[in-house]
């Protein structure tokens, strides 16, 4: 099972990313938990400078932008 975290303080881009990831998880049926991390102290543990950040199994995959749907699909199904 994959553990997906979206780091973001609640800006529109972060919400967009979360919605997209949830949609992809649903469509592909990947076994994964989606967690939204909004606490800034928690976010800073990942040592990132820009949000939103997509973390899959504690690994930072995309940061600072909203990923495209195909990107997310690829990351989740590989």
């Amino acid at each position, binding site marked *: 099972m994959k553990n997906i975290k979206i780091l973001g303080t609640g800006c529109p881009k972060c919400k967009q990313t979360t919605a997209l990831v949830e949609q992809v998880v649903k469509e592909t049926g990947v076994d994964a938990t989606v967690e939204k991390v909004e606490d800034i102290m928690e976010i800073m543990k990942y*040592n990132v*400078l820009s949000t939103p950040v997509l973390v899959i199994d504690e690994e930072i995959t995309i940061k600072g932008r*909203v990923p495209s749907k195909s990107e997310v699909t690829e990351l989740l199904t590989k």
Partner: protein
Amino acid sequence: MFDWIQNMADWIVFDLLKLEQGQHLAEALNFFIYDSVKILLLLFVIIFLMGIINSYFPIEKVRNFLSRNKLFGLEYLMASLFGVVTPFCSCSSVPLFIGFVRGGIPLGVTFSFLITSPLVNEVAIGLFVGLFGLKITLMYVISGVLLGMTAGIILGKFKLERFLTPWVKEVLANAEREGEAFAEEKTPFKERLPIIWAEVVNILKGVVPYVIVGIGIGGLMHGYIPEGFFEKYMNKDNLFAVPIATILAVPMYSNASGILPVVQVLVTKGIPLGTAIAFMMGVVGLSLPEAMLLKKVMTMKLIGVFFGVVTLCIIISGYLFNIIL
């Protein structure tokens, strides 16, 4: 350069819609079509160019560069210049702030970056070129960079570290120079393009409605407010005009892209350019949502000092513009 847009606007209004030349509605519509097409086109070009720069100029590199090199004062200029080329979403300001100070970058230098980043951004530049022309855009950009630098140096002198929130102080105390190996993305341009493109579309979607409404309001005002109307109240000799304009501007934020087209019309109606630029810097550079976010890392006192110093610098540059222009 933009003759073809004028021709197109003429064709739509006079040939396609068969409105008569000289008619008030026809002139307003003509102005509206010409202005919107020109401004949207310039916005698109500039956001796209900045997107390409950004894609190759990640923020981590900036941070690492600033924390690795001792620049003897030049770091304020560097931080300010970096602020121009990096995109800024106010929601990133907190992680950015912490990331910078944790990397050992002095607070003042971090402030330089934090000030210029929203002040001189791709949307503002695009609108400026479209509305005021290249010369004034250049002046805006240069004064934005100088302002970020100056305010950063002043704030650095205040020794403000003690006004950070406790948990940030803790972060600072445990600051270790993370010698993180920065994995450079070696994505070819062809693969970057769709990502940049998506970002451009995203930004445009967010600002276009405001810009259109702004141009619409500007167009109406263009026709109804007599030339030189504001000279009576807001001329260069009125010393209160600049501070009032700046202080009014600070709380405005989300509709910055809608305000610029209106301000341009106000300038043609007699508001001095320096006053107008101070107003626009206030709108673009400082905002209440940003202050709310910064509350997580700074005490109210520090936010107050930060906003106060920047507001003061904006007011001073407004006066300077009024004297020079």
